[in-house]
């Protein structure tokens, strides 16, 4: 026969101070666990959402990031006629891009951050078709105008519509703000590729990467076959989304490893706290337990009851930990991508799955902290414990 759960609820209430300590220990651990993972998730999600299934990225063979890539105008011309690429009103949907970083002060600290500049073709919004201008307008090709991502607009100083900024040897008018759906592009500045290169003493016939909109996600292979077998070219073709998810690996790994270590060590501490609470609960209630056993509740029922109590405490702890870090969700922070050395904004991303993981983690700590005291409770000899009366 099982001991009613009400018994555990009441006993937790009777010893609330020590229960609170265990709850807070577990809450802190779960909070750190969820926060670190959400940071890694957010960073990764921002980069992954930058890429699209429908786009192919063409870079020089062997280039590890756009920064080290290089594509000449003749290659761009060949790519434009390649099979599998969608066509818009003004020809193939291909954008040949120049990528650079410029130091622009962060509004928050006043220190320079490496902001990514991207020279794009004028039909870029047809290629990255989920992005849209939310303020002002798109830049005019051939004019010294730029549009800025919505995070760049908020994070870096001087990037407001109507302002002029100096990039390279040219002064540019900021004419619009675009929304790139929370992706890495939201931290970038975009201008005409043919002007941005020369502003940095680069020929306007040289680009870092080419992005093409595919007729369908399946036509990537067709495009890859055609480009990699062409003897005039020396390029790698990858799906845009794959490129960006690869970009996130180094920092994501760093955060996950460090976060995992810290949460792991904290978990040990929290289990110690729970053990302490449960052991003192058992020792304070020797008589109660003996009485229950004398009434006919079996050993397993007592073990079960104490584990339930520990689970109860850890569940509340896990819940509090999750709720405490919930306001972090969506909070934007900045970090440098260790693969391109450019600064980008991203948001903590707390998903339901992450919260469930946090609760499971808490319950796991609860079982560890409750099982041994429970076994001790069940193995107390009834007669000696009752004699303490």
């Amino acid at each position, binding site marked *: 026969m099982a001991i009613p759960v009400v018994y555990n609820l009441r006993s937790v209430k009777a010893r609330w*101070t*020590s229960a*609170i*300590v265990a709850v*807070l*220990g577990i809450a*802190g651990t779960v*909070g*750190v666990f969820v926060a670190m993972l959400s940071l890694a998730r957010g960073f990764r999600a921002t980069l992954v959402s930058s890429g699209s299934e429908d786009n192919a990225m063409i870079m*020089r*063979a*062997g*280039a*590890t990031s756009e*920064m*080290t*890539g*290089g594509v000449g105008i003749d290659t761009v011309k060949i790519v434009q006629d390649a099979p599998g690429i969608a066509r818009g009103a003004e020809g193939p949907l291909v954008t040949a891009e120049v990528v*650079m*970083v*410029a*130091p622009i002060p962060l509004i928050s*600290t006043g*220190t*320079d*951050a*490496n902001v990514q500049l991207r020279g794009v073709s004028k039909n870029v919004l047809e290629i990255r078709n989920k992005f849209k201008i939310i303020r002002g307008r798109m830049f005019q090709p051939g004019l010294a105008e730029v549009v800025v991502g919505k995070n760049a607009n908020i994070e870096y100083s001087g990037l407001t519509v109507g302002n002029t900024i100096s*990039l*390279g*040897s040219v002064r540019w008018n900021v004419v619009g703000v675009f929304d790139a759906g929370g992706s890495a592009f939201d931290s970038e500045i975009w201008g005409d590729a043919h002007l941005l290169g020369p502003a*940095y*003493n680069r020929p306007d016939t040289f680009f870092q990467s080419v992005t093409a909109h595919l007729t369908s996600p399946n036509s990537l292979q067709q495009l890859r076959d055609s480009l990699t077998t062409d003897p005039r070219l*020396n390029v790698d073709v990858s799906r845009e989304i794959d490129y960006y998810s690869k970009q996130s*690996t*180094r920092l994501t*790994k*760093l955060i996950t*490893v*460090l976060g995992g*270590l*810290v949460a792991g*060590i*904290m978990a*040990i*501490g*929290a289990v*110690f*706290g729970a*053990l*302490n609470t449960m*052991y*003192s609960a058992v*020792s304070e209630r020797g008589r109660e337990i003996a009485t229950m056993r004398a009434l006919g509740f079996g050993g397993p029922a007592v073990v079960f009851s104490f584990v339930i109590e520990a689970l109860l405490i850890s569940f509340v702890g896990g819940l509090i930990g999750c709720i405490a870090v919930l306001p972090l969700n969506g909070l934007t*922070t*900045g*970090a*440098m991508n*260790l693969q391109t*050395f450019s*600064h980008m904004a991203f948001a903590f991303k707390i998903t339901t799955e992450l919260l469930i993981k946090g609760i499971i983690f808490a319950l796991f700590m609860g079982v560890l902290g409750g099982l041994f005291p429970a076994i001790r409770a069940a193995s107390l000899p009834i007669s000696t414990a009752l004699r303490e009366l």
Partner: protein
Amino acid sequence: MKYSRLIFANLFRKKARLILTIGSFAVALFLFTFLAVVKGAFSRGTELAGADRLVVINRVGLINSMPVSYGDKIRSIPGVKVVTHNNWFGGVYQDEKNFFPQFVIDPDNQRQVMAEMKVPDDQWKNFVSDRQGAIAGRNLAKRFGWKVGDRIPLKNALYGPTRTWEFNLDGIFTNDKEGGDESQFWLQWSYFMKGQAGWWVLKLDSPDDAVRVAKTIDDGFANSSYETKTETESAFQAGFAKQLGNIQLLIMTIGSVVFFTLLLVTGNTMAISIRERTSELAVLKAIGFTDRFVLFFVLGESLVIALIGGLIGLGLAIIAIPVVGANLNGLLPPLLLSAATLSVGLVFAVLVGAASGLLPGLGAMRLRVVDALRRV
């Protein structure tokens, strides 16, 4: 201490509780040390930067290069002792995840400017006369098991068409500063000869000249096609570290969460164990021990627990941190555990111990003997 026996006898009253409380302290101290070491690893670049060194980069951005001839103009500025130019190589060794910084250096001046990075003279001589020569930091060589004489292939797309370049490891540098950078890979300028320098590092006659020299350099190149930005090495490193995100805040937040929790756990345990012994304390007072003695008695107990737990935690950290550091595999700068960190940790442990013993101790001090004895 003539009362130490009494304190110890009380400590061992409940062994499970004692072990768990000491364990909580050990875990917290271990975590504290670990976080402090990680934080140190992130800010070390700034702390170790030479006060007498300036870094000159292209004003439009770090990745833009400048004519190497600018170096002569910089050297002619009064107050400048030596100038060396560096370029970023950006090659990949076997796999992208094996990242380490590779610099194409100016062999004539690098050793004078980066004086703390020491290369044995015979190794340096081989390097200078070997166009495909390379020098690796000690940590880097250890990470990949390189020995002097090894051939090291790096795949690179920045210098001409993508191809694999091979280098001869001619020497290994060590860093005189404790925890200084030993993960760089230096290559020969004469092998590349691009005519463009990525950045310059210059050594000043005196750190006091830093502001004046920086201004002279930047003013001198103003309105040229390559404007410069000159900063002290530490400002340059700090700017870089800041962009990594607010790691300091993150670590401080976690650290305070941990300490708050620890304080609660131990405070609660102390309170429980004192409450259980109310009558004993009353007896002590009744037979003539003073209020102050009772306070010290309780405090002493929690301090002993804190000290033992703290020492265990620090001991674990001394053992574990080198292991963790080795497994992080170049993700972080080397983790360095300093005596200062250890002593700060111990002070923290003692403070937490005192704080958690204080409340129950004060309660015991104020205890009225009659009330307490009546409860028996």
